[in-house]
């Protein structure tokens, strides 16, 4: 695009200001819908899921458990850098069955080795937990939600697990941990499995899952295969998945969020494609004669094409900027409102660059076809066009 042709782009954009404005607005709204929904999706799925980390659960699924003894066998595999086990307490806040609290009994050191990339479990926090058998480390989001401080005593009631006093479990908050990134969900707490396991009345030495960090360069898919084959003929058959797959399978139990998001966003985009495409067809057709004149003046087809494309690119760029600005203005408010559903709404750089690509693609599509149509008309016919 020559700088000098800018005046032609400008004249086309300003010839019907109301029309350009409406186009920019409708594009902006579509990208606003996209921005909000993809922030919602990013918040819902969390960015803590890592494609290279693996999760081992019982092949039978649901709340079936695996024997903790499987851990040693997994740890011996050369592709495994670190492995840890997790047992869900499946508990609610004492006296309030509706207030479910995510609580996991873990071995803190191996847990930190596997999930240290996601949660800031620094040595001081681990030491504090090591000093108190009934201690707990609470995620920042959960602590803020409940107004908990270090040193507070927290009592949870498990739906299933009992100790000698019944199903109530009390812990002292030894520390509060953060995610390594703002999108990481920290709406849960961890307690020591050595304490939990020995206090259990029934079902000792059983865990809900193993988390695995493969050695760098190992193929997670191959490792998953190796593990499942190793346990294929045991009493506890396993199902090993990477964490992202595990998490989306888990989420789909509730709702196929990404499908819903994709559907709504597609509808929004198809609608603006139709609106902008249709408008551009008319806009180009009404200046057919001008295009004829430009050709008479010696403007090449390619040059005229670039002028039309620049017009739609400007429309989409301004609309995109508008939509994303609106999104970033709205998601903090929306995040407050949806706090119980989604830890945090977050416009990721990935969503932004995808939006940029989509905008560019749409601009080329909606500009190219009408312009091509106009360029195919012979000059003499274009000049006669009214």
């Amino acid at each position, binding site marked *: 695009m*020559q*700088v*000098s*042709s800018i*005046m*032609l782009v*400008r*004249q*086309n954009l*300003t*010839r019907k200001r109301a029309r350009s404005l409406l186009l920019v607005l409708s594009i902006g709204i579509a990208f606003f819908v996209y921005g909000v929904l993809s922030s919602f999706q990013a918040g819902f799925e969390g960015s803590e899921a890592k494609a290279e980390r693996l999760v081992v659960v019982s092949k039978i699924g649901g709340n079936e458990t695996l024997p903790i003894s499987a851990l040693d066998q997994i740890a011996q595999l050369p592709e495994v850098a670190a492995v840890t086990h997790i047992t869900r307490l499946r508990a609610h806040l004492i006296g309030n069955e509706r207030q479910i609290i995510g609580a996991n009994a873990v071995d803190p050191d191996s847990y930190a080795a596997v999930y240290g990339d996601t949660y800031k479990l620094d040595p001081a926090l681990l030491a504090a937990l090591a000093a108190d058998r009934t201690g707990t480390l609470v995620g920042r989001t959960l602590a803020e939600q409940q107004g908990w401080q270090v040193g507070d005593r927290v009592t949870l009631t498990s739906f299933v697990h009992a100790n000698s006093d019944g199903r109530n479990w009390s812990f002292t908050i030894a520390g509060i941990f953060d995610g390594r990134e703002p999108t990481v969900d920290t709406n849960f707490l961890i307690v020591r499995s050595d304490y939990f396991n020995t206090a259990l009345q029934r079902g000792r030495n059983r865990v809900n899952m193993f988390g695995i960090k493969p050695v760098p360069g190992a193929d997670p898919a191959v490792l998953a295969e190796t593990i499942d084959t190793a346990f294929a003929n045991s009493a506890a058959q396993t199902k090993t998945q990477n964490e992202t797959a595990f998490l989306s399978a888990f989420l789909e139990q509730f709702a196929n969020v990404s499908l819903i998001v994709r559907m709504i966003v597609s509808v929004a985009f198809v609608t603006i494609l139709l609106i902008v495409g249709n408008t551009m067809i008319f806009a180009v057709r009404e200046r057919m*004669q*001008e295009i004829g*004149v*430009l*050709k*008479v*003046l*010696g*403007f*090449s*087809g390619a040059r005229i094409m670039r002028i039309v494309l620049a017009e739609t690119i400007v429309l989409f760029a301004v609309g995109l900027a508008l939509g994303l600005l609106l999104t970033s203005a709205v998601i903090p408010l929306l995040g407050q409102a949806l706090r119980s559903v989604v830890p945090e709404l977050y416009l990721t750089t990935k969503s932004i660059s995808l939006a940029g690509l989509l905008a560019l693609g749409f601009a080329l599509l909606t500009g190219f076809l009408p312009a091509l149509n106009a360029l195919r008309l*012979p*000059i*003499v016919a274009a*000049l006669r066009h009214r």
Partner: protein
Amino acid sequence: MPNDTDITLTHVTKSYPLGKSRIPIFQDLTMTIPEGDFLAIMGPSGSGKSTILNLIGGIDTVDEGQVAVGHTVLTGMSDAALTQWRAAHIGFVFQFYNLMPMLSAAENVELPLLLTPLSARARQERVRTILDIVGLSERAGHLPSELSGGQQQRVGIARAVAADPKILLCDEPTGDLDRTSADEILDLLQLLNRKLGKTIVMVTHDDSSCRVAKRTLHLDKGKFIQREEELMVCR
């Protein structure tokens, strides 16, 4: 040897489709318009006057025969090549001006200069000079809608000569103007022909155009006839 801008039509046949048949416009038309000529073409509506200009300007093509300007044979050239050639060699002036409605007078004149390697500063310079020649320096910033018909046509002529082509093709340039404005336009064209050496081919219904033209030809039923008596009147 032809001059650089001698225009030659050789055995040109041209027809337009009408339903299944074709209406012939010219059959075996041969003519030469020498460099520096100021030719006025008159004739009844539909006789093919505009078609001749379009053929010379390379925006329409012959069925048979050949159109050449100087050593350049237009017949058979690709659209892209014709477009490029036209930018450098031809200026078109239209009856209804065909200015870009959202661009100022100066910007309209600048348009063809965008196709030259001139810098922005050089373009501005040139636009100013040309607006001065056509007497519109005062109106440089005005939109076409803010100009009279005569002024718009002067912008149209300024645009046609901006890139300094040797040939001007004018299709009824005074057809939409009152007498006074029409005379001003004719004077301007005469100036461009006599002082700046532009070759001008002008289609017109205006009888007084023979006042400025060097030759007047009448087109009728695809043939040119020279009406000697008219030439006498004008001399």
